[in-house]
């Protein structure tokens, strides 16, 4: 047995399968499923005996292989029409393997490019004649950095659970911003006006929740004339 050394460098079950196909010099479109299944399971057994962490995906593919193998052993069922008879149980797996192989090659293609900081380097020093480095360090940000920054902050808090974000809270913030925009422009508005023409159920709910939140925060006041009259909204504090 000489595969031990290979074990930890597989990028996943598909990678292991591709390795076995290459090692056996098999046509990927015509995999001898019994042989490959046997070798695949042997590898898994070895990984297990070496106490390597077996990701669940390896086991899923193992069961897929076993399933395909059993399907191929069965004689075609009675009364099956020709189309189904022609269906190769390996087809889906082959397609998946080909697709994966294509991206694996693409990854190697990327690695072959002249890479920044490996093959090519840009100017190392601050390039200006007079250094304009007196500004504080600036960084360019994306959404990921934003949420990561928030996660960092609340990780250091005593009661992080109070600060969990959910999509609902954010939708609410959207509506709150819209309502406050409208009020700062028009001084007053009504519930009906805020809903606009769309009678989207979610929008109605969030608009209502936003109004409640704004009242709770004492940012707006709501008045109603009569039991079924229009609900009028005003800013609590004039700007």
């Amino acid at each position: 047995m000489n595969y031990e050394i290979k074990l930890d460098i597989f990028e996943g079950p598909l990678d292991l399968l591709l390795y076995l196909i290459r090692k056996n010099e098999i046509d990927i479109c015509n995999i001898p499923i019994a042989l490959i299944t046997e070798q695949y399971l042997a590898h898994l057994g070895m990984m297990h005996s070496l106490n390597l962490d077996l990701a669940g995906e390896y086991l899923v593919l193992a069961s897929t292989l076993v399933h395909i193998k059993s399907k191929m052993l069965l004689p075609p069922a009675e009364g099956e029409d020709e189309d189904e008879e022609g269906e190769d149980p390996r087809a889906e797996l082959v397609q998946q393997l080909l697709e994966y192989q294509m991206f694996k090659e693409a990854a190697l293609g990327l690695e072959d490019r002249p890479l920044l900081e490996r093959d090519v380097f840009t100017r190392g020093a601050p390039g200006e004649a007079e250094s304009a480095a007196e500004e504080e360090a600036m960084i360019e940000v994306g959404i990921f950095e934003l949420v990561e920054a928030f996660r960092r902050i609340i990780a250091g808090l005593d009661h992080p659970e109070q600060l969990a974000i959910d999509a609902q809270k954010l939708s609410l913030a959207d509506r709150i911003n819209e309502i406050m925009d409208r009020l700062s422009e028009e001084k007053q508005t009504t519930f009906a006006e805020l809903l606009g023409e769309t009678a989207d159920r979610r929008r109605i709910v969030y608009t209502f929740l936003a109004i409640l939140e704004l009242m709770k925060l004492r940012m707006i006041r709501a008045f109603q004339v009569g039991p079924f009259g229009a609900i009028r909204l005003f800013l609590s504090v004039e700007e």
Partner: protein
Amino acid sequence: MGGGMTVMEEKVAIIEALIFASETPLTAERVMEIMPGAEKKEIVSLVGELVRQYGQRGGGICLREVAGGFQFQTRAELAPWIRKLKAVRPAMLSPAALETLAVVAYRQPLVKAEIDRIRGVDVSGALKGLLEKKIVRIVGRKDVPGKPIIYGTTRKFLEVFNLRDLSELPTLRELKDLHE
């Protein structure tokens, strides 16, 4: 402008200095903002002349088109010397990260579940590393139940892999065997 050691036209000198001083590849659009009155066509042709000059000269640096802009870089063949200067092993992406990146680059915009499916493993770790390195970014959310996050590559991806734009990615090997 003329080649060689003849004194350079002022406009070309300014563009050269701007490209040199810029932290990221400098686009013609940015040059136009800085030098009002310069037309895009003119800028592109002057930069082209600079690229040609540096190429002919065969020195240690060259001027390349990257991520839609222009950037001075050391010549790739000299990398061993520069690595010796920097005395650091290049921070390479792991094979898992490269595979994940390849899927994102060619199939973008796409959701994580699609990357998981193609690679046949959970790509959480690799994806997070790529996000942290700012090679991959969150593009938005898909308008389907659960609103999954959509990923794509960044400008930095183009810079790191020395690509003019995404269309410069080599075409994927044909999937002819796939669909009959």
